[in-house]
């Protein structure tokens, strides 16, 4: 049956057709929809793990126990998962195992642009790179067949444009694959040094075999045409190249990109007048091509950052940009994402941004938007879970230098479970008096509302143990724990005042659901009148001071002729933050 699927949907479809039974992931753009789609198949057990390392280990366990398993993550998630992954490559699989990484050339929703093809080479795990959705299906299925044949996990490397582009696929029946038997085999599964030495030898032998497979696989193929230009490309860049050069070039399309096919590349390069290497991010293919003694044009002509879209390629090759309508750019206004109307982060950051003499150590989530106007309430963001530990280091350094500056750290509920817990242990164990804020909006927000260990539901929608953040925090040894409603600005101020005066670590949990969340029965029971009211402005009382607008609410606007603020009824959900800011009590609840 023909369907129009995104790459993420197609990866899930391919895993389904390949008889996969076990899937684990932590959400991260642009990979999130892979597990969301896997969870819709009754035949597949699918879980959100607290982080990528845990997801990887769970998938490894399922493979060792005999099932075909899959684990998916965004590119930076692979850094978290790298520890088990590197050794897993040594061990080899029982049931097949596929590791999906979704890279982000152009950094649409990411903090860096790392090229995870380097991971395949470093971990010595074979890698496939699909160019469209049909190849996502085909390569996932091939990865299980080859992985079980050659005793290796496989990495499938996607980029945003493969993940989030739709193209037509042919959907087929699922093949039920019986579980492999588990047998005690310490030489394969226990990585003691004595065992690992033998594994390393077997790994290197396996790579030799896979080099041969890479030469003959249909995923690596030359398409000979006009030989004045030869293009070597993988992933989405293959289609970008076809768009630009059409039939005026020959192509070496690479889909099996670790190990790379030495002979195939040499043969192709010998048949064309010049070779362009089209790849986003690092010169991964280019370095190999040069290493085997072939001349090519790569990063000396094409950029190492951003997407290598057809217009970019065209401009590099011809020296001329596409002809475009040239309009007055000064008429453009910025339209950056912002906190939604009713966002529970608003009250906290509105107040926190007004504090002097603090450094705010932030983290990865919607709340990273607090770095921008109007709050300007974030001074650092590195990676998931870093807010507490980076903040602890900074606070300690300020103390060592005799500076009175205090450090406030901020992360979300899902990020707390991801890697924040370890960081908080560091803070408590090493006696740092940071003020640590956990924005508990009852869901994993930024990636589009995935369940997490604090919500009480699994990826499959089943009820489970709800892990209470305040219990975890107290168990770690934090003595000063505040649970507040961030929409009540007096509660925010009081908690901040008291915590900043302490010489011991403290935690403030701001507990109110994301305004976009589909509320669970537990949410409805816990939170009174959840987004069912609206606020209104009394135009007679409004003096047009615009203080309320500094809360950054998209439901509010200012009429510069009438010099009055108004609230959009369709957007307002009655969080009351603006009513507390207005100095003239002009904003109140609608009746």
């Amino acid at each position, binding site marked *: 049956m*023909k369907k*129009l699927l995104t790459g993420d949907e197609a990866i899930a479809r391919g895993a389904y057709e390949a008889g996969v039974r076990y899937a684990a992931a932590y959400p991260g*753009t*642009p990979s999130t929809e892979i597990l969301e789609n896997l969870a819709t198949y009754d035949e597949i057990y699918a879980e959100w793990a607290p982080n990528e390392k845990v997801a990887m280990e769970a998938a490894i366990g399922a493979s060792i126990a005999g099932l075909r398993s899959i684990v998916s993550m965004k590119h930076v998630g692979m850094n978290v998962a790298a520890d088990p992954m590197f050794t897993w490559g040594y061990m080899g699989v029982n049931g097949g195992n596929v590791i999906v990484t979704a890279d982000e050339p152009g950094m*649409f*929703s990411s903090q860096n642009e790392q090229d995870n093809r380097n991971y395949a080479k470093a971990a010595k795990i074979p890698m496939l790179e699909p160019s*469209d959705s049909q190849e996502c299906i085909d390569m996932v299925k091939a990865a299980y067949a080859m992985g079980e044949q050659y005793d290796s996990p496989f990495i499938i490397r996607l980029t*945003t*444009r493969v993940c*989030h*582009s*739709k*193209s*037509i696929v042919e959907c087929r029946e699922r093949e039920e694959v019986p579980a492999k038997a588990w047998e005690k085999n310490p030489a394969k599964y226990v990585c003691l040094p004595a065992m690992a030495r033998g594994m390393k030898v077997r790994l290197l032998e396996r790579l030799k075999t896979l080099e041969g497979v890479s030469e003959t696989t249909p995923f690596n193929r030359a398409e000979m045409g006009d030989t004045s230009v030869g293009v070597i490309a993988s992933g*989405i860049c293959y*289609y*970008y190249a*076809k*768009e630009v050069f059409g039939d005026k070039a020959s192509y070496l399309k690479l889909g099996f990109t670790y190990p790379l096919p030495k002979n195939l590349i040499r043969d192709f390069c010998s048949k064309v007048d010049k070779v362009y290497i089209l790849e986003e991010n690092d010169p991964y293919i280019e370095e190999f091509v040069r290493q085997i003694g072939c001349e090519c044009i790569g990063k000396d002509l094409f950029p190492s950052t951003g*997407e290598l*879209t*057809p*217009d970019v390629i*065209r401009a590099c090759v011809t020296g001329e*940009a*596409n*002809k*475009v*309508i*040239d*309009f*007055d750019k000064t*008429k*453009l*206004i*910025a*339209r*950056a*994402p*912002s*906190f*939604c109307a009713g966002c529970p982060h608003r009250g906290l950051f509105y107040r926190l941004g007004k504090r002097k003499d603090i450094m705010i150590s932030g983290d990865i989530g*919607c709340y990273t*938007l607090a770095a921008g*106007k*109007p709050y300007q309430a974030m001074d650092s963001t590195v990676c998931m879970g870093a807010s507490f530990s980076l903040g602890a280091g900074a606070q300690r350094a300020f103390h060592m230098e005799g500076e009175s500056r205090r450090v406030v750290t901020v992360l979300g509920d899902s990020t707390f479970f991801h890697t924040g817990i370890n960081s908080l242990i560091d803070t408590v164990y090493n006696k740092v008096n940071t003020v640590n804020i956990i924005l508990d909006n009852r869901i994993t927000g*930024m*990636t*589009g509302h995935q369940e997490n260990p604090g919500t009480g539901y699994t990826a499959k929608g089943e009820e489970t143990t709800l892990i209470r953040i305040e219990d975890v925090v107290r168990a770690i040894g934090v003595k000063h724990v505040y649970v507040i409603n961030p929409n009540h600005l007096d509660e925010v101020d009081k908690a901040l005042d008291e915590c900043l005066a302490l010489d011991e670590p403290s935690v403030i949990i701001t507990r109110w659901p994301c305004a*976009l969340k589909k509320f669970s029965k537990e949410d409805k029971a816990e939170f009174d009148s959840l987004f069912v009211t609206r606020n209104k402005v009394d135009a007679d009382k409004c003096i047009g001071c*615009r203080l309320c*607008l*500094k809360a*950054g*609410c*998209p439901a*509010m*606007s*200012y009429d510069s002729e009438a010099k009055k603020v108004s609230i959009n009824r369709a957007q307002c959900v009655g969080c009351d933050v603006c009513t507390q800011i207005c100095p003239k009590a002009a904003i109140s609840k609608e009746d």
Partner: protein
Amino acid sequence: MTKSILLVGVGGQGTILASKILTNGLMEAGYDVKMSEIHGMSQRGGSVSSQVRYGEKVMSPVIEKGKADIVVSFEKMEALRALDYLKEDGTLVVNNVEIPSMSVITGDEEYPDDVLEEIEKHVKAKVVDATGLARGIGNEKAANIILLGTIIKAMGLTHIDWDAILEANIKPQFLELNKKALQVGIDAVE
């Protein structure tokens, strides 16, 4: 020949549903289709876009600057922002709606009052009051399907059985509204 349709707007305006229906219709009609979207933080009021390409065999899912056959903007400022994607002889449809961004709300920037004038200095835009027309048929939220109707008319795609595509993609309780909306959109373009 591959055709390129660019839909732009503000997160929450329904560009994704409109492009889903469009691409499914094109696939059913036998075209090769690719669509690319950038989302992630799209629900949080940022600029959003859906790129749709169709033809006998589509290569890149991404539209190049200066190469869109039609740009349909769900909001005025976003039409201006996307202008450098439009072919010089391409079609521009603009929903005559102004959505202030956060920088406007907080007073850091002003929404210029001559956006349409700036656009019309360069291209003849088809300005549609899709939001008003949608209100006229009973629900403001159908504006996205009205704008889809303008694409269908402008790109000569009226031969496709869009009612069947709508039936497969829209909840039954909104079906009649959306069928009506599509026709309103088709009629709004000469």
